[in-house]
């Protein structure tokens, strides 16, 4: 399978997990559900944070949660469209 295609799919799954958890999930359950190694998980988390697909929020008790940004929602909405475009032009 195309490596870059896997990357897009991994990001999609990562964001989808957050969305499916009412847009708020702690890092540890997210790691478990994402089916990624710790290293990969940290790499993707950092990338998605830096690109503002997700953000970290801390509640009053100091617990960290990860949520989607508008950009993250946009990616989820457009994912199938993007895949279709890539297939259409064999990119």
């Amino acid at each position, binding site marked *: 399978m*195309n*490596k*870059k295609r896997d990357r*897009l799919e991994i990001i999609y799954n990562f964001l989808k997990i957050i969305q499916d958890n009412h847009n708020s999930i702690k890092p540890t359950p997210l790691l478990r559900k994402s089916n990624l190694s710790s290293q990969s998980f940290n790499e993707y988390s950092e990338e998605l944070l830096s690109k503002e697909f997700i953000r970290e929020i801390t509640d009053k008790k100091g617990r960290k949660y990860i949520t989607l940004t508008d*950009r993250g929602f*946009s*990616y989820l909405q*457009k994912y199938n*469209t*993007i895949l*279709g*475009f*890539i297939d*259409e*032009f*064999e*990119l």
Partner: protein
Amino acid sequence: MAIPYLFGPVGFISEVLYTMIVVLFCFLIYFKTKEMYDLTKYKGIQYFRNAFLFFGLAYLCRFVIQITQLTNIASGFGFDIGHPRRMVFPLFMLVVSYLSTMALFYLTYSTSWKRFKYTSFMILSNAVAICLALVSFIFRSPFILSILQLLLLLTAFIIIVKQHKQSKKTAITKFLYFLILIFWLLNILVLDSRWFFPFEYKIIFQVISIGVFIAIYYKVKKWIK
């Protein structure tokens, strides 16, 4: 002396319209895919966009060359506007060569980037593009440029066709790419004063060329919401 059609108002207007429409669709493709690329940073999309950006710029610069040729003809009728024609033509030939060669490379690379390293591609494409640009500048010959780009086109076509999966949809896309490149070569050939296309044939191939860009844009627009 027979006045080439470009000097006539109809020929000039047709060239202006043709260039405007092609450039418009090239830039539309480039800008409409911006969001998709910004979201994914997917390399294939980047190279696809670059191809049409470079094509748009190449068509614009090609039009400048035609204007240069027009004013060159006009000066023979006493309408010398005094610009450095002898500098503009070779300079823009250099720019057109580089832009169009890079466009060809990017179009090819957009479908084959997984097979070739980016560094190798950048080195090879820029080296070839600069060589072709220098050849065009030195010889001031659109005919030579079109022959050299034809060789590149044939190589590119072989690479594009030999991709992993073939389907009707991708075959149509590849055919459209092939037409874009062929029409580009014809557009360059027309710049050579020895290649005088009858006006009617020129209009026909311009209309078909526009149709090809519209078809590509339509395929892009289908996925842009």
